[in-house]
């Protein structure tokens, strides 16, 4: 069972569905060789594995203290001494990226959890709660959609004040409505499927059908969504940090590093390029992995 199987895909939106920017159909059009298939799994696993390790034990991977100031070495370009160069205070960029994995990924993971959790509640209520609840949830989602992406996050931050906690909730809120619609569509499609009819004819109760057929079949696509959402949430959270609304400056958080590097863009491109590359790698790995999972589910 996959997200696209029931036609809930961007090119075939359930009336009024606005898909999150990255949820794309993953119909394999070409016979892909064993090599590309291997790459499709190996690339995300290696990238995410590396950053997961960096999250747990950054000291194993990082040669320098991420906060150690060394003005003599300021603005060293990438080279043998400092693999990815240094920033305006002579701090090692590579070590900062390694140490930055923890705040960046944890913020992303927490935001995804909040977004998916909220989406799961809204989507399930809309999918199973009957016509009125469905319409009510639809209205709520319509309002959330009217402030797309960062706009909703910014309005929330304007009310609650900037900070890491706010960022997590804001990003969760931003991603929730898209997922909620997808989950609802998934559940509605499952609810109407001949599988449910067959189970009814076999004498299963509604509750039994919900727990043995509907929810388990809806879970696999939600895992795919979660993987995809992680990459997106890391990007959103970094965007907010970049705009100066997330983690405060000295912390080695990726978005904040980029924001700091912006001032020296013409002087030290590596200060901006490499933290951004880390974000791109994580987001791309999450996208590729979620697609592999989706296809694996399709068989």
């Amino acid at each position, binding site marked *: 069972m996959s997200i696209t199987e029931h036609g809930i895909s*961007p090119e*075939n939106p359930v009336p009024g569905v606005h898909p999150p920017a*990255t949820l*794309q159909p993953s119909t394999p059009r070409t016979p892909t060789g064993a090599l590309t298939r291997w790459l499709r799994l190996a690339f995300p696993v290696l990238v995410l594995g590396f950053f997961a390790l960096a999250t747990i034990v950054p000291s194993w991977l990082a040669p320098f203290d991420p906060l150690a100031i060394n003005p003599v070495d300021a603005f060293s370009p990438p080279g043998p001494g400092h693999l990815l160069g240094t920033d305006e205070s002579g701090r090692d960029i590579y070590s900062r990226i390694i140490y930055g994995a923890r705040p960046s990924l944890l913020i992303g993971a927490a935001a995804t959890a909040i977004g998916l959790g909220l989406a799961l509640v809204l989507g399930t209520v809309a999918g199973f709660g009957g016509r009125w609840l469905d319409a009510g949830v639809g209205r709520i989602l319509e309002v959330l959609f009217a402030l797309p992406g960062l706009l909703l996050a910014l309005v929330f931050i304007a009310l609650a004040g900037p900070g890491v906690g706010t960022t997590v909730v804001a990003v969760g809120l931003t991603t929730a409505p898209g997922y909620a619609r997808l989950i609802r569509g998934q559940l509605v499609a499952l609810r109407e499927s001949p599988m449910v009819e067959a189970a009814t004819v076999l004498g299963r109760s509604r509750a039994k059908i919900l727990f043995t057929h509907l929810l388990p079949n809806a879970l696999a696509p939600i895992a795919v969504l979660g993987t995809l959402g992680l990459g997106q949430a890391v*990007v959103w959270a970094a965007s907010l940090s970049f705009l100066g609304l997330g983690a405060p400056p000295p912390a080695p958080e990726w978005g904040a590093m980029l924001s700091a590097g*912006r001032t020296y863009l013409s002087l030290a491109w590596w200060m901006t390029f490499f933290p951004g590359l880390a974000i791109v790698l994580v987001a791309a790995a999450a*996208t590729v992995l979620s697609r592999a999972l989706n296809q694996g589910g399709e068989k």
Partner: protein
Amino acid sequence: MTPKTAPPRSTDRPLKAVYWVLGKIGGGVFVLWAVATAIFFGIRMIPGDPAQAIMGGPGSQASAEALAQARADYGLDQPLAVQYFSQLWRLATGDLGTSYSLKIPVAEVLRELVPPTLTLAVLALLVAWVLALAVATASIRSGAVGRALASGLEIISAAVPHFWLASVLIMLFSTTLGWLPPVSTQTPAGLVLPVATLALPLAGFLGQVMRDSMLDAHTSSFALSARARGESENGVLLRHALRHAALPGIALSGWAFGSLLSGAVVVESIFARPGLGRSLLSAVTARDIPMVTGVALLSAATYVVIMAFSDVAERLADPRIGTA
């Protein structure tokens, strides 16, 4: 059991159109009301003095007079219901209040900001459309190379944040090559990088969706029928596949426009370009609530209008919708 004949077109079309317009307006008003209400109660749910929050939080060190002024402006000494309804009434009559950071009416500020943001978003949407169609067509016509290109764009669109893409483009075209200004000036050259930053990821996404739809059309039975009539590959592409490819693009344009408004926040601040997004950011940083409310309401209204347009465009492009 579906009857094979399509149901006859309803005869009361004008009436239906009126209902449709009324429904859209009703939905739009509801959205605006909900946004205004959420912000109104949001401020008051935050612990502390709402006047303080309106003035930018405890850190703003607002003077006692300013706080008193805010209390009077917002009628904070009155019962909550009175405050709420008078606030709604003010908003409904177009009075968005005065910006605390800029000290001028919010409506006036917004009037200045809409054209630049709209220019940016519309241009980016057009460029993304053209690129997406080009990518889709190329991937159909050129086999493996086109597919690799399309697939690469797809991943990029999913993974590359606007702020990083903007930085890379500036490094490349301004710092290194010196072709384009790193700051958005009033000249057309100043628009190139901001538009490219917004358009590229969107093009990747739209291109992917259009490519799938185009490939479906290209391998469909009706394309085979056309070829069997003697139609050339270019003819199949032009007369059949292109139109099918455009459909999902049109359907997603409302959503795409929303994502462009969101992206404008980042792009406008990186390229120091005046506009809604950048003003929202500075209003958020200054916690200028009247300004935030104004931009939020305006964005929501824009989004509602764009979605309605996109709906109409979809119906025009796909005659199948609305006949059922």
